[in-house]
Structure formats: structure tokens, C-alpha cells
């Protein structure tokens, strides 16, 4: 379990990125931080692997304060996947993934074998293993990024808008892939996005944030949809635009699901 205890971060230039934030993230579930740009999502995420040290408060992983742990060791024990994949441009795909194993002290052969295995797990053709990142599409790079995050089999996976830079079709694919992986692997995932649909799709627990890391609402997607805590949340999840308020109409003998604006969005299956 990851726990934020009354945490805050003010950067050296005086920017208060996070005011006072407390939350528990249950193990083996996906928690999604969602909110508009600059609300402190990345800052919150990076406090878990000590890429950002809090100004006050604590982050605990399984009841151990991360500030008591060696930074490098801590980071090696946590998977990190970011937007634009962040791969090393001078290393082949396979080496980008295997390097994480090497850093943890695995020998060459073991690292490569494991890297091949995990590339397969994320659905990447093995013929791409010997390419450089620049020779891959954005979606393929993102898969490599996920593979790199998973290769050491960490308990925790931090994902910072990992699918933000790919087109909607590929994003859809990657999201489905992540759901499948999570069913198999049961990681504790902390996922950052500003796309509420993505948050509802992937999150077991969704955290809607306002500026300064202020929590507008925490809950499962169903809880939030059923009972938005306030106007901010209703508008953020799109209830006000009517896209999410659906009803059934009968047209030409078929039951069609229609939103408030009258647009047909689906059919009702029996």
C-alpha cells in the first residue's frame, strides 16, 4: 500500500504545487490521478520514487517512509513509465529494457532473456528488438516504455500520461493492453492523466484533483458518476454537457441509447 500523509510541495521558486494531500492507495489496484494541467499530478507521482522530495509530510510504501530509503535503490524497485516513453535514444530496444535488469545486477544473458520475454508480454514483435527507439512508431515506443517499467517485476508501477502522445486508436489499444496486463500481473499502479474517460476506464480508485493537489473527489468510477461531490466534479466528468446522461429510446424497433443532446451513442444489449 502507498500512503500519502499530509504531504505538500513548494518548489524553490515559490510555486506551491501541492498544498496538503493525504490518501491511501490500496495494493494491487490502479489509482488514477486526474485533473487539468498544472494541478500537481506529476509532482504527487514523483514523490513516490523520490524524484521530488516533499516540503512537508510523508509518503509511505508498506508503512516505510520513502525518505528513509536510498533514492537509487528505491527507483530501481519501482517501474516508471512516462509520456514520450523516455527511452535512451542510443540504445536498442532490447538494451533499453535489459538495462533495468543490469542495473539491478542481473547478468547479460539473464537480462536479455527477461527483456525478450517482457517485450512479448506487452505485444511487441521480436523483430523490433534490435531497432533504435527512433525507428519505432510512437505507439511502439510506448509499449517499450511499459516493458521497461515491468521488466524487473516491480510491485509498483508509476505511469505519467503514458498514452498522452499517441493517436486515439493506438491509445485505445494500449489502454486495453494495460487492463489485460493488470489482470495478469496485479501491480499497484499509480496512473496520471488529464483524460477523464481514461481515468474511468483504468482506475479502480479515481482521484479528481483541483489546483494545488486539492482533492475534489475520490472514489470508484461508479461512485463518482452516481454521486458527484460538487459542481466542479460534475463539470469535470462531463455530466453538464450531457454526454454521460443516457437514456433509452426505441427507434425502428431497436432500443438505442441516446445522450441528453439527442445523439445516439449505442444500442442496448439484452
Amino acid at each position, binding site marked *: 500500500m502507498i500512503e500519502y500523509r499530509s504531504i505538500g510541495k513548494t518548489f524553490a521558486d515559490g510555486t506551491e504545487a501541492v498544498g496538503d494531500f493525504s490518501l491511501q492507495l490500496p495494493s494491487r489496484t490502479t489509482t488514477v490521478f486526474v485533473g487539468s494541467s498544472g494541478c500537481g499530478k506529476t509532482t504527487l507521482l514523483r514523490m513516490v520514487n523520490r*524524484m521530488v522530495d516533499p516540503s512537508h509530510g510523508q509518503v509511505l510504501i508498506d508503512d516505510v517512509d520513502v525518505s528513509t530509503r536510498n533514492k*537509487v535503490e528505491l527507483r530501481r524497485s519501482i517501474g516508471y513509465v512516462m509520456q*514520450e516513453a*523516455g527511452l*535512451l*535514444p542510443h540504445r536498442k530496444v532490447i538494451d533499453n529494457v535489459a538495462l533495468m535488469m543490469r542495473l539491478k545486477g542481473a547478468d547479460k544473458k539473464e537480462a536479455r532473456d527477461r527483456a525478450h520475454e517482457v517485450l512479448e508480454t506487452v505485444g511487441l514483435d521480436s523483430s523490433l528488438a534490435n531497432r533504435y527507439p*527512433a525507428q519505432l512508431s510512437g505507439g511502439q515506443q510506448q509499449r517499450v516504455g511499459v516493458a521497461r517499467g515491468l521488466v524487473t517485476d516491480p510491485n509498483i508501477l508509476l505511469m505519467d500520461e503514458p498514452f498522452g502522445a499517441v493517436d486515439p486508436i493506438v491509445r485505445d489499444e494500449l489502454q486495453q493492453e494495460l487492463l489485460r496486463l493488470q489482470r495478469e500481473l496485479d501491480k499497484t499502479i499509480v496512473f496520471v492523466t488529464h483524460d477523464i474517460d481514461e481515468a474511468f476506464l483504468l482506475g479502480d480508485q479515481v482521484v479528481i484533483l483541483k489546483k494545488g493537489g486539492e482533492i475534489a473527489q475520490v472514489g470508484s468510477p461508479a461512485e463518482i458518476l452516481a454521486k458527484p461531490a460538487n459542481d466542479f466534479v460534475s463539470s469535470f466528468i462531463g455530466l453538464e454537457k450531457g454526454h454521460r446522461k443516457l437514456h433509452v429510446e426505441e427507434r425502428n424497433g431497436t432500443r438505442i441509447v441516446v445522450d441528453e443532446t439527442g445523439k445516439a451513442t449505442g444500442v442496448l444489449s439484452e
Partner: protein
Amino acid sequence: MSWFNANTDKVWDLLLSHLWLSGLPILLGFVIAVPIGWFANRHRRLRGTILSLGGILYTIPSLAFFLVLPSIIGTGFLDPVNVVVALTVYAVAIMVRSAADAFESVSPAVLDAATATGFAPTGRAFLVELPLAGPVLLAGLRVVAVSTVSLVSVGALIGVSNLGSLFTEGYRTDNDAEILIGVIGIVGLALLFDLVLVIAGRLLMPWARTPRQGRSPVSPIMSFAQHLRGGRV
């Protein structure tokens, strides 16, 4: 041509001395300048000072430098070490700026990703920063190489034998053929160094077909032409 045929051994000897008199400073200059450039890029406040210092060193006229070095480092007047040391200083002076630029050209996002995925600082410096600075380092090294090869010839004026000796001797004996052989030898050697560096770059950095943020300060050929014109003596 007849002069060359009669003096092949001598030209060959001079070529070999020229080779090590330039090769050693190029190598030493690179090895010394890279950590300084890395440091200068790391410490933004000192960067300006370090780079200006390099600029000032480079303005010392080479002949004067060759002449005063013995009294500074205690070598003999005709010792080739003087040439090697002086040219190493010039090489460092040019290379430090390239090195600082090279490390600056490395994408901060990639470095951040490397840290976040668990690289320790030293590992990151050698496994990520250094190779990614490679293309711009190489561009700088090519300038250093050609400029050093041409500068070595000034050493002939203080009696350190190299291909430049063909200039001094050819001038004294009014032998145009000898001077021409000297020029051809030096240009050839400079091109050879450049070729070796380019090939080494291709082999060591297959991922960098063109340096992405390649800011080659001066084209090697331009700087070479400048030195041949004797702008430095």
C-alpha cells in the same frame, strides 16, 4: 617528383613524427577537455569563466608559446614535449567549449528518465550523458584534429622535426617541390585524421546518423584553411 623519389625515407620519417606530434595532443586534449566541459555544463555559474579561460588560452601565439614553455615546465629548448604540451593546451582550449555544448545538447527529458528509472549519478554520466554528447563531441574533435595537424608545422621553426620542416628547408634552399610535398603531406594527414574520426563516429554511434542538435562550431575545413594561411603564427 624527382626530389620526392630521392627523399622518400626522410619524408616518411617526418610524416611519422608529424603523426605522433599531432595525434598525442588531440588525444590528450580530448581526454582532458571532456570532464572540464562536463563540469562547466553542470555548474552554470562557472561555465562562462571556464569557457572564457579557454578562449584566452587559445589566443596565445603558438610560436611564443613554444619558446616560453621550456622555462615554465623545465624542458630543453628542442624537446618535442614543448610542442606536445602547447598543442594539448590549444586542443583543450577549443575542445572545452565543444564539450560544454555537447553535454548541453543532451535532452533533459532523457536524463530525467534515466534518473527516474534508477541510474546512479556516475552510471548516468558514463552510460547516458557521454554517449549522447557524442555527436557534438565528435564535431568538436574534428576541428581540434585538423587545427592541431596544421599547428604542428610551426614546431619546425623551433627545430622540432615534422612535415613543417619541409617548409623551412624548402624556403631556405628555394625548393618549391619540397614545400609542395610538405603541403600535400599535411593536408593528407589532416584528411586522414578526419576520415578516421568520421568512421569511428559511425561505428561507435550507429544510432546518430546525423547529430540531432549538432552545433558544429566551425567547419573543420574552414578552420584548417585559416591555419594554413598562417593566421596563428
